[in-house]
């Protein structure tokens, strides 16, 4: 049984036209429904809890302005929000690290990262670092398609590129990941 049957469209209707109390509760429900996915996307894209936090906040504040542009016939709300989040993340990264590759690939120093508390398998941490080390164009397609398991069409809409580009980037990204992670993955296969 679905514990939360209210559709995104119904919540948005309440946000737009409901009483002050109903609108705020609907807005909060929308935030709670989607914040985790956006936070994960930003965290995996940047490796920075601070940037991820900022990106989540900016995504929803921006959505307040862009809400009228959302058309459920053209895609899901999650996809629409992901598109905003992607733009926010890229903008923040460009501001802080002009010229690509803002994230250091440090295979040793992971102290203080929020994922460290829940990453009990060293392989997961290695994969996270390998994803972070990918060029941005490959990193985002891996996160959308392989980690968030979004359809190619939805990923293409979020990224604003053809589906074929998503496929080719994903193929290249997986190859890079396999090259980097071959020893780790081979080790797991022997367990």
């Amino acid at each position, binding site marked *: 049984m679905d514990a939360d049957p209210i559709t995104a469209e119904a919540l948005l209707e309440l946000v737009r036209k409901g009483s002050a109390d109903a609108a705020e509760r609907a807005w909060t429900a929308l935030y709670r429904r989607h914040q985790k996915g956006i*936070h994960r996307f930003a965290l*995996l894209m940047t490796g920075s809890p601070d940037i991820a936090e900022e990106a989540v*906040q900016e995504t929803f504040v921006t959505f307040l302005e862009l809400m009228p542009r959302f058309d459920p016939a053209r895609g899901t709300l999650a996809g629409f929000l992901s598109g905003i989040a992607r733009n926010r993340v890229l903008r923040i990264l460009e*501001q802080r690290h002009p010229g690509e590759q803002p994230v250091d690939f440090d295979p040793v120093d992971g102290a203080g990262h929020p994922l460290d508390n829940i990453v009990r398998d060293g392989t997961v941490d290695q994969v996270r670092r390998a994803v972070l080390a990918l060029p941005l164009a490959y990193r985002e397609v891996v996160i959308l398609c392989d980690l968030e398991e979004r359809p190619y069409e939805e990923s293409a809409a979020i990224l604003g590129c053809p589906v074929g580009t998503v496929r080719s980037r994903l193929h290249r990204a997986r190859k890079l990941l396999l090259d980097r992670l071959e020893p*780790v993955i081979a080790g797991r296969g022997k367990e």
Partner: protein
Amino acid sequence: MHDGEFDESGRLAAAMRQLAEASAVDAPPRVEAAVVAAFRARRRAGRRWIPAAALAAAAAVLLMAVWLRPERPPFVREPAPAGFFAITPGPLIEPWEVAPVVRVRLGRRDAERLGLPVQWHSQITAMEVDVLVGRDGVAKAVRLAGYPEQNLKGTKQ
């Protein structure tokens, strides 16, 4: 694709699934507080039919005035209680009220939109601010974080 590649791809997919599960972490509660505060401010502004362009223009005028000050201090504040800078018209809080103060993190664009009189350096993209919340739940004023009080007792202006 030969068997070895198939095995590697399968193992990579399994590792990616593990990473996806391990990365599903909630944003901190302060983000929700900030997002809800932004919603309240937006809704209140909408009810009063204040165009966003007018707010932006007011903020721009304020920033220009600050920027043209000869001393160019790190920031200046309007003469409001305990450093608060009003973002809604009317009294911030009544003398008998005790208003909660919520600390949130604001991106540069949002801070500028609120008209916070801050001189930004290029490397700074966000800042922590205290939001004074009125009895009606609406954000009344903001100030740069760093003041010790958690709640502000009403003072006549």
